[in-house]
């Protein structure tokens, strides 16, 4: 009997539940199946079955077509504008991923429905009676957790997980400016994008050069900002300095300004005919304009300096807060031992500050690794270098990916680079994560 119930539910969802006299629950499951079948039939399969249209996968319903599209990426390119029936590979891919994910959910509900029919029957045979209403109440209580995380989970699924899956899949295709659908059909090409990145010298060397600059940038940017912030915090807090609050309130300003605006302002200030050059020319310090944003060395320096301007206030505020937690007795102890101000700083303040702010330094390096704005709004990655493929010498990985996607349409290469970065970061922080206490506790 248990098996019969389960089998009934497997064929007609909710069938087993009806046998178990749980009509309401059975109806709900049946309606879910109804939705699935209705969507599939009404989006094309019905026409295929009744012979209204040619029996191809292209004409099938949402789910069948989705799976077919994901596997084949389409068959007919839109060779000319008069081609009426054609496949758009990338659309097929994304709908394929979405329909597969939705289908997986239906499969889960299907399994649940079979399991439920089986278990309820077991309970009935043991003499317990469970009504649908009780079940729903019970379910609400038990799955409060699941219901509450559903909105977040769905959002993350569609906006993070599916795009990540898409990116990963694109890296294994030849989707780039040579094969823009629907004019062309995109094909699965395996690891070709990755081997291209390694084997084609210009791609490989660009990747390595951009990666080296990105990593150096992430560290230099963080440490300059941290250093300058530390200096200001220490000086403002030094003995005998007045108006501490006033200094702090003025110096915090760059942090409070929207970075986008500040960066665009600096871009104007740093122009060859901009205010900084005019100032230096007028003061007679230089005779020719400094190419602040157009020569590699200067452009990199400018970006680092501007980033310092933007980010030092945060560290200053943070370090100031950390310094208040240092007990004055420790400083007195240094004095008794005959130490001076430098000793106090070197042996008491600095170690405390570094310990307290260490996580922030790590976070800042990670943020700078992907600091799109600082590069894109100031230099746009320029100046260009013939030795770099589709990148400028100030480009970091994230801006390179952005340009590869938006300007050069090298989707497959951009996706492959994303995956490489992802593997890099995920490995480092994955190991780190597993070791933290909070993760072990849960």
């Amino acid at each position, binding site marked *: 009997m248990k098996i019969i119930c389960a089998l009934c539910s497997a064929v007609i969802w909710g069938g087993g539940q009806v046998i178990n006299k749980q009509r309401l629950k059975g109806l709900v499951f049946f309606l879910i199946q109804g939705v699935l079948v209705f969507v599939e039939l009404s989006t094309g399969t019905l026409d295929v079955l009744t012979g209204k249209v040619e029996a191809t996968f292209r004409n099938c319903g949402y789910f069948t077509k989705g799976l077919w599209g994901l596997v084949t990426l389409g068959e007919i390119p839109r060779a000319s504008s008069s081609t009426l029936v054609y496949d758009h590979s*990338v659309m097929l891919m994304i709908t394929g991923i979405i329909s597969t994910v939705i289908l997986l959910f239906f499969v889960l509900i299907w399994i649940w429905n079979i399991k439920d029919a089986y278990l309820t029957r077991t309970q009935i045979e043991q003499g317990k009676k469970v009504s649908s209403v009780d079940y729903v109440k019970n379910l609400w209580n038990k799955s409060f957790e699941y219901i509450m995380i559903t909105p977040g989970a769905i959002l993350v699924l569609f906006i993070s997980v599916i795009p990540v899956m898409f990116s990963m899949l694109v890296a294994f295709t030849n989707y780039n400016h040579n094969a823009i659908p629907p004019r062309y059909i995109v094909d699965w090409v395996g690891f070709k994008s990755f081997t291209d990145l390694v084997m084609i010298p210009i791609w490989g060397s660009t990747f390595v050069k951009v990666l080296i600059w990105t990593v150096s940038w992430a560290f230099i940017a963080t440490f300059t900002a941290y250093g300058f912030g530390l200096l200001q915090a220490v000086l403002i807090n030094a003995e005998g300095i007045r108006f501490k609050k006033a200094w702090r309130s003025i110096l915090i300003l760059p942090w*409070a300004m929207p970075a986008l605006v500040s960066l665009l302002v600096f871009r104007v200030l740093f122009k060859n005919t901009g205010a900084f050059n005019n100032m230096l020319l007028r003061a007679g310090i230089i005779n020719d304009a400094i190419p602040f944003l157009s020569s590699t060395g200067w452009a990199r320096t400018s970006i680092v300096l501007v980033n310092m301007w933007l980010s030092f206030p945060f560290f200053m505020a943070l370090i100031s807060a950390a310094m208040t937690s240092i007990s004055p007795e420790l400083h007195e102890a240094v004095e008794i031992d005959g130490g001076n101000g430098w000793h106090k700083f070197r042996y008491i303040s600095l170690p405390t500050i570094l310990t307290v702010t260490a996580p922030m330094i790590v976070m800042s390096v990670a943020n700078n690794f992907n600091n799109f704005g600082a590069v894109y709004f100031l230099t746009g990655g320029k100046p260009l270098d013939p030795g770099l493929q589709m990148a400028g010498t100030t480009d970091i990985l994230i801006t390179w990916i952005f340009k590869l996607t938006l300007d050069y349409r090298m989707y497959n290469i951009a996706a492959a680079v994303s995956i490489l970065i992802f593997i890099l970061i995920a490995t480092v922080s*994955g190991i780190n994560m597993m070791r933290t206490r909070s993760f072990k506790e849960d």
Partner: protein
Amino acid sequence: MKIKTNKRAKAKSILARTLIYIELIIAVIIVLYPILWIIGSSFDPINNFGRTGIFPKNVTLNNYFRLFQKYDYSKWYLNTAYLAVMTMLFSVFVNTITAFVFARFNFKGKKAGMLSATILQMFPSFMALTALYMIALNFGMLDNLNMLVIIYVAGSIPINIWLVKGNMQNLPKSIDEAAYIDGASKLQVLLKIIFPLSFPIITFIAFMSFMTPWMDYMLQRFLINSSDKRTLALGMFELSDHNTATPSDFTAFSAGAVLIAAPITILYIVFQKYLITGIASGTNKGE
């Protein structure tokens, strides 16, 4: 002898203090010059970005008027404000309920959920720009501000979950237990106890979500194309850009920059305390 060393120490400390003041004054000049310069430019009748002085020779309000008359500045502003408010509301809603569940209950898939949040956090959503474009196209949400809201909220979940969850875990569990004994439901515990007690961290995520649309450029550039839906980031970038076909209007750009920066700077200063503790607690999640 003793007096002599005292004098020397005093002279030394005065010298040190003077040097510190000089350094601080230089820092203040570095910080203030670009800010005052852009404010000055916004009142300058002459469109001259090479101007070195802070204050223009003549003063006009025309740049501000032009912003509203010639450009759709008020529309950009409204669009961005809409994005900001909606992102803030949804982000607070979704993050609070999700974090509550992760902080207080044990359920199947919890560890997997937290782990995927961490992994996704390392794969910023903008790395998948093409995919987001295709998804928007698929759901007919291209050139739609609500699509941006959804992306901002979803993008904020992985990191905020850790933040809010960590904070809620610091609240003693005995409060909830007492409430459950009194017959409260889980939802009531969240709304009446946990939510008010987590207010500082929720203020922090609300503020950060509110700020996202003002700072983002990439997604807006990708997903918005009609001038009707244009945002501040897009409009301002175009005004500042000397390479685009539209002639740049530097003084109008300055005026626009002032009008964005002023309210946001004030907000930052007001919320400063929340923000620094918020960021600090975010990085202490490992503890």
